[in-house]
């Protein structure tokens, strides 16, 4: 068996490049804590309105006594509910998404607020928006003939002017099971 020395060198260089990319991903994940939405949490999509967490009154922006902000939004053909939310800039925001019907996806362009919304599962993404702006919120997975019309807006306000809703108690059972 014959392997040219030059080709052997190239193979090592290629291996090094692949290793470098893997290294960058690992630094992102383990050091900077940037992970893909992967919470593996089930929910009954057919009875979302009966779950405590995604009942109508519970949707939208909530803040707990530690200042942790959670936004709960239901994706259902063909819209996001509640229709509009306002969150502060420069603050970590945890989004929790659930579908009431079929597969959806959601992306806020120019940000990493992106996740699939799979019926039967809750998707959770935590991100921080650096600047105040009005961001579109687009359904990015084919969900039926009205898919083009499935979109909404999120307003990101300056941290100082953002008005927090009243505090919600933590330690509460999410009531999903």
């Amino acid at each position: 068996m014959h392997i040219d020395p030059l080709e052997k060198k190239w193979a090592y260089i290629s291996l090094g490049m692949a290793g470098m990319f893997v290294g960058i991903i690992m630094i992102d994940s383990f050091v900077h804590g940037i992970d893909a939405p992967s919470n593996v949490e089930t929910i009954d999509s057919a009875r979302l309105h009966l779950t405590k967490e995604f009942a109508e009154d519970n949707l939208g922006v909530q803040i707990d006594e530690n200042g942790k902000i959670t936004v709960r939004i239901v994706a259902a053909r063909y819209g996001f509910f509640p229709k509009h939310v306002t969150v502060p800039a420069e603050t970590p925001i945890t989004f929790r998404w659930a579908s009431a019907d079929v597969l959806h996806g959601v992306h806020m362009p120019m940000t990493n607020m992106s996740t699939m919304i799979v019926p039967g599962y809750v998707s959770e993404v935590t991100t921080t928006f650096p600047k105040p702006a009005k961001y579109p919120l687009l359904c990015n997975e084919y969900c039926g003939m009205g898919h083009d019309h499935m979109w909404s807006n999120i307003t990101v306000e300056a941290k100082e002017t953002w008005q927090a809703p009243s505090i919600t108690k933590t330690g509460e059972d999410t009531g999903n099971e």
Partner: protein
Amino acid sequence: MNDTAVKKLALSNFWVAFIAFILACFMGEYQVLERSGLFPPLESAQVYFASVSTHGVLMAYVLTTFFIMGFGYYTAATSLKRPIWNIKLAWIGFAVTLFGVVLAAIPLLTGRASVLYTFYPPLHAHYIFYIGAALLVVGSWVWCFIMIVMMNQWKKDNSGKPVPLAMFATVANALLWLWTSAGVAMEVVFQLIPFTLGWIDTIDPGLARTLFAWTLHPIVYFWLIPAYTAFYVFVPKQAGGYLFSDEMARAAFIVLVVFSLPIGFHHLYMDPEQAAGWKLLHGFGTFVVTLPTFITGFTVIASMEIAARLRGGKGLLSWIGSLPWTNPMVLAIILSLLMLIFGGFGGIVNASYAMNAMIHNTAWVPGHFHLIFAGTTVIMYFAIAYYLWPIMTGKALFSKKMALVQLWTWFIGMSILTTPWHILGLLGQPRRISSVEYNSILTLSWEPYEFAMIVGGLVLLGSACVFIYILVMTQFKATKSFSGEVEYASTYHPVKDLPEFLNSFSLWNKVIAGLMALSFAIPILQFFFMDTHGSSPWGY
């Protein structure tokens, strides 16, 4: 050897592939026109999504599967210099696959299967669509089986000798396809068909997506392997030189098969039903599978350099000018490699776990896979057709000049189409919309790029028509006859003492089984241990 029989078999497969291809090209151009919103009378979500679903099925399943089968049969017969084992069975496989396509086409074309080629339960299409898809896969397994039998019989008669590289690569692809298609086959047989026939009330989309991800990555290597095979076994000869390394080619095919399988979760990075650890594991494997492509780039470019220097090429890079640019195969590989470089760069962005969030499901993604599949891969399908048509039909190629123009226009059209497509993705445009309804100033920035895509699509459609025209004219109208055989490239260094692990797949099947168990067993089994809630069927 009954040469006419295999030629007829191969040509029949190729024709089904290319008829599907040209129909899908017209749909592609309709889609960019419809989507742009510049032609209001065209706008219809119903027609658009039926068209997207059909375009995807025709290009990804019909063009590829039939091309690969035709190419495999002809490669097997010519590289092993023996007739197709059980050619009757091969025709039965062809008939079953074709029947599957026809079955699937009925609901697709009547708008009763607008669920895209990725199925997307709990949306449900007419059950005939899934049965057709299943038959398409089952028919192609016949081809896999024949390829494996032929290699084993040849090895028995030629013990100790290296299997010809072209056949080794073809069998690698057959094995890859058997492993690959198992995932989607399980989804279709155990989930989608019972679900759409009403035998089960609910479906777990999490499990369905996991099984589809099993198939979704290696399937692109199934499509790509014939292009790589042509890189190694045809190009060096066509360029006037030798294959730089036969052994490294085999190693590249093996790594491609082994590592393209356990990495499908990079399609699920943004999914909630799999945990981060599994996604990372599959992400690492995704970078391992870049290695055979880097090796292929090296070996193939080295082979071309040998050819160029034999032709009097000099200098560090100016030898490139001495390549026979007017040979369709050589031109195709140059353009193919150019598209591979840019497409590969985009692919690394997709594969990068956290960065993927910025472009997931945006227009960037179809931009990427059109560049890699319709660009890098399909341009080699063209070159293979131009090379084999005169040999198989006994008629000289209708016009070499026209073939060269066709290859150039395909490359130019693909550049005009996919560059704005990538940019649209960075500007946040979702990939699967039929019209832009968002009341946001962001959408104003999209318009010029959508216009450019229409132009790119038109160039590609014209190029595709020229391709079909050349094949038809060659086979049915040409008067000049042609006599020639397939010429496989010889190696620069003769292959000596080939270790058995580079001449057989028995070890590698075990490695694959181990890796698949490691990467998929728990992620699949978790759905049976978790408290999951199935989804009932939804129309669209």
